[in-house]
């Protein structure tokens, strides 16, 4: 039971980090129809900027400044890169962001090198906050959870109770209608894109030092974020939250409780094939399939319920 709670804690933490990424992505996607392949690259940029800023100043400055810079970079890319491509259609836009992801990864390698940079947890938060039933709950992980929950609440309030939120929600559901009411849709797109990228930047700042700040971090996390927004349903922030938590918890539990298929086969009274070509099928453990699980969920979801859990329209 104690270990279950600890695994759940880590799962929720990972899920909230995924949500920070997915929230921006789902806003961008549902408003502009652009599946931003480079979204995780902005997450990576957030981590690298935070590393650079915390080298010069400190972590708290990085927490504020890095996401702002990432947001500016994102808005710039939307303005001068994505907007001209818009007329060639959604597939061209998707391809454009795919190319941008490559370029960002290479630029990061060019500036910071191919090896991971030592972006560390700030000293003030390196210890354990409390130890409960044999497991250490570190200050920093609790802090991460607090930050991501705070951002979720702020985002929810922004979208629900402010005028900007009203316009954004309207632009998500019917951009043409909003444009006819006199709102500058390209500008709203640009700032939404920048805002979404800034959210990914926040995730990079708080997650980069735990997950490791290296050039491959974007490509590892990127596709999983897609899975989150598709499973949650496009345009649905609540869906993104639920899906992010599900995926976070499922993958962490699968790694934590390392059950094998072999034990199941034995329980069914079958014999285990230990020599043949297919022997690995009986040796698969849940920790091994954990990286595959999100994609399996994605494929099943797209086949059986393409709208996702809470989506109101097809992908």
């Amino acid at each position, binding site marked *: 039971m104690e270990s279950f709670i600890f695994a759940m804690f880590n799962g929720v933490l990972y899920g909230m980090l995924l949500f920070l990424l997915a929230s921006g992505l789902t806003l961008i996607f549902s408003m502009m129809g652009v599946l931003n392949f480079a979204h995780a690259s902005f997450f990576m940029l957030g981590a690298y900027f935070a590393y650079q800023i915390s080298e010069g100043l400190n972590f708290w400055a990085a927490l504020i400044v890095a996401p702002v810079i990432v947001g500016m970079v994102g808005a710039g890319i939307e303005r001068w890169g994505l907007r001209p491509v818009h007329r060639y259609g959604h597939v061209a836009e998707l*391809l454009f962001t795919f190319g941008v992801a*490559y370029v960002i990864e290479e630029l990061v390698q*060019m500036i910071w090198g*191919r090896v991971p940079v030592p972006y560390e947890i700030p000293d003030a938060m390196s210890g354990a906050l409390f130890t409960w039933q044999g497991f250490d709950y570190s200050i920093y992980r609790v802090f991460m959870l607090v930050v991501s929950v705070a951002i979720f609440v702020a985002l929810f309030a922004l979208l629900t109770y402010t005028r900007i939120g009203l316009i954004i929600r309207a632009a998500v559901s019917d951009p043409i209608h909003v444009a006819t009411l006199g709102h500058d849709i390209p500008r709203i797109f640009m700032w939404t894109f920048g805002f979404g990228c800034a959210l990914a930047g926040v995730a990079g700042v708080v997650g980069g030092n735990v997950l490791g700040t290296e050039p491959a971090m974007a490509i590892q996390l990127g596709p999983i974020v897609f*899975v989150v927004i598709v499973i949650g349903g496009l345009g649905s922030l609540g869906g993104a939250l639920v899906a992010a938590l599900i995926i976070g918890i499922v993958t962490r539990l699968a790694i934590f409780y390392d059950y094998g298929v072999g034990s199941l086969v034995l329980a069914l009274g079958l014999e285990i094939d230990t020599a043949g070509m*297919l022997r690995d099928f009986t040796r698969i453990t849940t920790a091994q399939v954990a990286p595959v699980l999100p994609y399996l969920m994605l494929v099943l979801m*797209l*086949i059986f319920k393409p709208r996702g859990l809470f989506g109101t329209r*097809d992908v």
Partner: protein
Amino acid sequence: MGRLAPWIGGAIVLIALPHVFSSGFALTLMSQIGLLIVFALAYNMLLGQGGMLSFGHAVYFGLAGYFTIHYLNFIYEEEVPYIPVTLIPLLGGLVGLFFGILIGYVSTRRAGTTFAMISLGFGEMVTALTLVLVAIFNGEDGIQTDRVIGEELFGVTYGPNIEVYYLIAGWCLLCTLAMFLLTRTPFGRISNAVRDNPERVEFIGYSSQRIRWLAFSLSSFFAGIAGALHAVNIEHVGFEQVSVLQSGLVLFMVYIGGTASFVGPIIGATLLYFLQSTLTGVTEAWVLYLGVMFVAVIMFFPGGLAGLITMHQPIWRVHARLLAPLLIPYTRFFAALVASVLGCIGLIEMLYFRSSRLSTETELVIYGIESDPFSAVPWIVFTGIAVAGGFAVRKTLPSAVSAWNTAIADARTLPRG
């Protein structure tokens, strides 16, 4: 006869190439380009002709490669019926077809972004599985074989690289012809129609889903042939061959080459693989250049390189001399472009040199000149070239565009001949 000319010409070029470039490096390079052309053309059956953007087409390429290697090893151990290596690619194609039918059934129900997502999901899934199912895929090491399994017709053993080259060249020509003829069939045409307007296709009585499925399966078949050729050529296959990186590479080849024309993927595969194999030894920044090139193609000439050629087709169709006035403005623009690109490359190379802390090289040579990235002079020079080139590009572009406009207007007023 005029229709056959390009094919006969292509065959003659394929036969003659190894006599012109006979070094071992050139042979391996040409073999690899040959099979990548098959892969790229197969991919373009999806992207260009069927309107399906796949991020996971390397799955069929790679799985066919794995199967081929296992089959060759089994032949060696006499556990399976003997198949001559000449026909092994067909087996790879059938493996590709099998997985194409299977995965295509679920993934081609929808087009557009959904299809792209599902293909990415399957791509990631298969890549992850290659690392889990060690007995079949042998993890990160991959599996290898010996392609020499016995003597075939005319004493061919596929030991020497030149024999493998001709095997690949033969299959390349055959597959190219087959895929070209496919575009001329009613199926090819209706596949274009599904890309452009699936709803109308439904109204004339076709199931757009079935058409996509068929296109996907056939494309996987040819991708499988390419994968088997890869396995025979390299005698090794690893998880890189099924990974999203390989899928991305073929996407880059096809898109930069041009999706709208049949020869686009051939141009793209040839150019990109040539650049890749010659540049990876020289520069660390190859992937960056590739990415920038791809983004530039999407933003500025979505027709790709083949699109730039076909843009001028209506002009030379009327008369080749109409191209003459284009020469000077084009040369000016191109010179400016080359200058600014060379300047940027110099800057990027110096940045890379400074950041790679593990670099063993002590001096950086750019364009044959030793440049010290820690002194100011090369930075100033390269920045100057890049900026001046950039201004020149902006200045020369309008005249190049207006020259083309004039030429195309002239071509429209003149009669053909």
